[in-house]
């Protein structure tokens, strides 16, 4: 085994690029190795070209606070409720922020994966001789190189967040197009790809199961069967019949998270036989544990260091990628880097669950909902992933943020030979929101009621019951959100404008014709649950340290772009009155904070940071309070100074510290939840709920079937706005993603084969498609059980936007609009 660099001394670390703080992910210290049991670090990970950049390094923290080079402090507000810019904003804007794909280590090899060209096939044999014969190839690994299965045979070391069924490499059967079957390490990326292509796999193609409706009766495509979960909800009296009944069948396509950076990472072998993974994980400890399990190693011998995450809307990478990387490093004894192509990225990472939803709504003559019957079918793809979790959300929230006395739902998540689905903002609740909001529009039409009015008449509020029997204990300002939208003036019609200044559907210089354009206005309101559900142990740990004039936060909540690091800084500033707060990089040597998904980090990790900071505060103030002869509660800290309530006594923080280091570690664990009953769907399954209402204004060219969203107006229930600008950014991001699903994003499976795995074919909203997004209200009714009273903000707008856009298109065209993304043929007249 050749080790590229023999010692762990820091001299061979190149300096990070401008805007990258020492210790940040990807900076030399952030990505540096050698923690854990391996004290003699084997090699060094740094960023490509980091040392060759000649610009002076801009310390992000200083730049961010607006301090000039002369050290004069510009007055920037600090603490909760203000909007400091993100620490990494400068580096990201300047293109110097190091992402996983920028990692580098001396003597590294390049990995590439051989993938199945079939959606469903039996593997008869794998001949990797031709690949190994290519000069420059160091190793080829397949299922046979992983931990063996229970029978002593290779089974691809299946793993998964809930059910362990997704192999790293297919062992006997491939179940989706692009599923990995082998991986190669070589001295050049092209050689690695060439070698991967040279692996000869003999397949016996099998009939692919790609229609989720056929999954129930088709022969099982996996020993676990084709049904991931069936969740009924039985609430009230099934015999009730309304004065008005409307029915609808709705379909939601396959949205891809399409992160700006494709999957990439670096694995470095450790002298103890383990491996260190530098990857853009959003769930470092979960991924570390699963990777160790697949590799047949103790978790302690796998260390995962989180590098800069180039985009994630919940799940990002499948663990198979990380395991393949680690295995190649262990096999070759070299660091191995792998960067997936855009096509591979589309094929492997989890997508949004495509769904088929059949609804029947019963209402009385006044438009009050009596009964909702629903059948929901989620296409989970080839492996279980988190389908059962998404299904619980879909089933429990099938009736939406409305009071409905009788609800009967049957929800299924099934296995198909489509690519696996996973978590994406509002998984489960997004699909149902589109359906129940479409149903409310139909009901309004059937009763000739105003569309806002019918929603107000049925709006849920605190104290009402979900169809799962759980009482809504958090703020549920549904009516208030709708009122905020109703009060908002509409964007002006382009009547006084020359035609060529009007941005028509189809874009500038496009084929749009003002004479064929109709404007439509649509409303939608929806909800998502916050945190893991059904008894998931939601917990996070954080440490806060104060030393001199600086505070540090150690917490492994990955900031995927959500701004958690900024929030953690604000929390510490608020509690300790110290402006200089350093956020440590994330690796698995620290205690877990859980995945950055399901809107949980503000709650659990924010809560843990606050508690730890409060403990430090207590340690700091206690002696002083004794000295002043008053209780610590009467002392305040601000601007680095401790002052008594009456302003008489005071002391700088630095002096109070007396040169000591203060440390505290705390956990935050919200109140427990319980699983939904498997027959009735009853149970207190959720920790909290967040609500959002949206009004969409669209222009539709009714001849061509093209749509442009003119404006989205958003009213959101945020509990407490901890960083208003960050919240607006999250709302813009979520709403734009929802718009993408509504109008254009669909990963097309043709018999299981994905036919548009590229950015030329998979259309994302561009800046011309993104409308004006106006946040008309951030309702701050604090959730008393949540840390700071705050609610997660990212998922709710993504959940509601598709329904709002569909409603507006419906209003403009009079068509039913039952499918997302809305095809041109469903729009045109």
């Amino acid at each position: 085994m050749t080790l590229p660099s023999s010692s762990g001394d820091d001299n061979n670390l190149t300096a990070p690029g401008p805007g990258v703080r020492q210790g940040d992910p990807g900076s030399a210290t952030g990505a540096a190795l050698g923690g854990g049991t391996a004290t003699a670090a084997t090699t060094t990970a740094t960023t490509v070209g980091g040392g060759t950049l000649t610009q002076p390094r801009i310390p992000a923290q200083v730049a961010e606070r607006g301090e000039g080079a002369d050290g004069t402090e510009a007055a920037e507000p600090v603490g909760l409720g203000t909007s400091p810019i993100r620490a990494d904003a400068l580096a990201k804007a300047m293109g110097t922020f190091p992402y996983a794909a920028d990692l580098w280590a001396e003597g590294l090899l390049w990995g590439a994966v051989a993938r199945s060209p079939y959606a469903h096939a039996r593997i008869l044999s794998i001949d990797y001789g031709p690949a190994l014969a290519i000069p420059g190839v160091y190793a080829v690994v397949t299922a046979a190189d992983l931990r063996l299965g229970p029978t002593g045979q290779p089974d691809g070391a299946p793993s998964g967040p809930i059910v362990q069924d997704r192999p790293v490499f297919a062992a006997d059967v491939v179940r989706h197009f692009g599923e990995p079957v082998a991986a190669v390490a070589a001295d050049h990326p092209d050689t690695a790809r060439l070698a991967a292509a040279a692996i000869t796999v003999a397949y016996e193609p099998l009939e692919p199961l790609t229609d989720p409706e056929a999954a129930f009766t088709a022969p099982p495509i996996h020993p676990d069967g084709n049904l991931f979960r069936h969740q009924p909800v039985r609430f009230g009296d099934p015999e009730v019949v309304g004065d008005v009944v409307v029915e609808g069948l709705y379909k939601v396509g396959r949205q891809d998270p399409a992160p700006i950076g494709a999957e990439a990472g670096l694995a470095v072998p450790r002298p103890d036989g383990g491996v260190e993974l530098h990857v853009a994980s959003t769930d470092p400890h979960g991924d570390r544990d699963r990777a160790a399990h697949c590799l047949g190693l103790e978790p302690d011998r796998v260390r995962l260091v989180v590098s800069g995450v180039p985009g994630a809307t919940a799940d990002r990478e499948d663990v198979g990628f990380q395991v393949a990387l680690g295995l190649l490093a262990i096999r070759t004894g070299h660091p191995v880097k792998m960067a997936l192509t855009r096509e591979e990225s589309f094929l492997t990472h989890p997508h949004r669950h495509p769904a088929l939803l059949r609804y029947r709504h019963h209402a009385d003559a006044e438009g009050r909902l009596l009964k909702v019957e629903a059948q929901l079918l989620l296409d989970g793809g080839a492996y279980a992933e988190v389908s059962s979790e998404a299904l619980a959300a879909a089933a429990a929230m099938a009736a939406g943020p409305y009071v409905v006395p009788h609800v009967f739902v049957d929800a299924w998540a099934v296995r198909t030979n489509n690519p696996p689905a996973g978590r994406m903002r509002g998984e489960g609740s997004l699909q149902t929101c589109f359906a129940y909001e479409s149903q409310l529009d139909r009901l309004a039409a059937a009763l000739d009621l105003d569309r806002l009015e019918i929603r107000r008449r049925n709006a849920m509020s605190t104290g009402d019951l979900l169809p799962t029997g759980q009482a809504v204990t958090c703020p549920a300002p549904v009516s208030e959100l709708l009122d905020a939208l109703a009060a908002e003036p509409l964007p002006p019609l382009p009547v006084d404008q020359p035609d060529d200044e009007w941005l028509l559907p189809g874009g500038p210089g496009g084929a749009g014709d003002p004479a064929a354009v109709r404007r439509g206005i649509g409303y939608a309101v929806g909800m998502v649950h916050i945190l893991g559900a059904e008894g998931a142990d939601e917990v996070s740990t954080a440490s806060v340290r104060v030393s001199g004039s600086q505070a540090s936060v150690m917490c492994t909540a990955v900031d995927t772009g959500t701004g958690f690091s900024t929030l953690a800084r604000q929390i510490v500033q608020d509690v300790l009155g110290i402006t200089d707060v350093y956020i440590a990089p994330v690796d698995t040597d620290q205690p877990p904070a859980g995945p950055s998904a399901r809107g949980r980090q503000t709650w659990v990790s924010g809560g843990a940071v606050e508690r730890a900071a409060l403990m430090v505060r207590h340690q700091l103030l206690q002696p002083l309070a004794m000295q002043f002869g008053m209780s610590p509660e009467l002392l305040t800290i601000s601007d680095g100074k401790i002052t008594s309530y009456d302003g008489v006594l005071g002391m700088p923080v630095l002096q109070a510290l007396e040169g000591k280091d203060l440390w505290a570690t705390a956990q935050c664990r919200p109140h427990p939840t319980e699983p939904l009953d498997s027959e009735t769907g009853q149970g207190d399954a959720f920790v909290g709920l967040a609500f959002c209402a949206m009004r969409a204004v669209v222009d539709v060219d009714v001849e061509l079937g093209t749509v442009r969203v003119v404006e989205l107006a958003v009213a959101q229930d945020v509990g407490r706005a901890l960083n208003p600008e960050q919240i607006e950014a999250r709302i813009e991001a979520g709403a734009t993603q929802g718009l993408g699903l509504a109008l254009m994003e669909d990963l097309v499976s043709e018999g299981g084969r994905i036919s548009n795995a590229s950015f030329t074919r998979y259309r994302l909203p561009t800046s011309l498609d993104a409308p004006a997004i106006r946040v008309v209200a951030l309702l701050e009714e604090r959730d008393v059980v949540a840390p700071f009273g705050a609610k997660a903000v990212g998922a709710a707008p993504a959940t509601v936007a598709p329904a709002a856009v569909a409603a507006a298109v419906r209003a403009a065209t009079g068509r039913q609009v039952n499918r997302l993304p809305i095809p041109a043929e469903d729009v045109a007249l």
Partner: protein
Amino acid sequence: MLPASLDEAVTALAASPAAVPVAGGTDLMGAVNAGLLRPMALIGLGRINELRGWQYQDGTAQLGAGLTHARMGRPDFAALMPALAEAARSAGPPQVRNAGTLGGNIVTADPAGDTLPVLAALEATVTLVGPEGGREVPVSHLLTGLDPMRGGELLGYVRVPLLHAPQVFLKATGRTGPSRAVASVALVLDPGRRAVRCAVGAVAPVPLRPLEAEQWVSGCIDWDGDRAIDPAAAAAFGEYVAAACVPEPQPAGLPDSQPDGMEGGPAAAAARLRRTVSVLARRALGRALK
């Protein structure tokens, strides 16, 4: 290799036949980065000034293959070749228009290439230059493979007639921002020959010319008067063009067999495409005769 003249480039290509010419690289480098292509060597055409401009030549314009989309979109160019300018303005985002060239668009010959239907409607010809000198080939022959580019040849120039009459290019896409054409229509008036010429892009591997529809509509126009057309005739022209260029949708069962307006399937999509082409052709004619 960065030759400074077309001759040098042709010589360089003859010397290393495995080399691949690259102009703006907006198509080529995508293929290289995706690992679909690994050229032995590249011959950069970006320094060949003679290919980057355009000039008049007895009633026609001779366009260098290296003209960028951005250049073609400028007003001076648009005044003479409005449809080509419109196609160039609609091709991709500004970064791509600044680099991507007319020659690259033709040689790539993507079905959705935006300049292609315009060149087809204009009945443009291209000058292919090889070691034995140049030859002139109709663009449609090049695209259909009737007269393909030979080894060692470069695309030097494109010759288009100057018609001094309205020309329109319309493109239907799936989003408001820059995007591939779902269908496009180029329509030019040739008052000298009292003809309307039209080509439909993106619906077939090469641009399609609905010759009968062209002829029919040419007869409906009052060429000596105000060149007006009856709206019903314009609509009929749209239908005619669509019927000629998009195959009849094969009904997959009864249209109403889908519940709740879940209309879908390939038949509905084909019907939609027909309608799109029909609307584009009608609008294009309307704008040309405005």
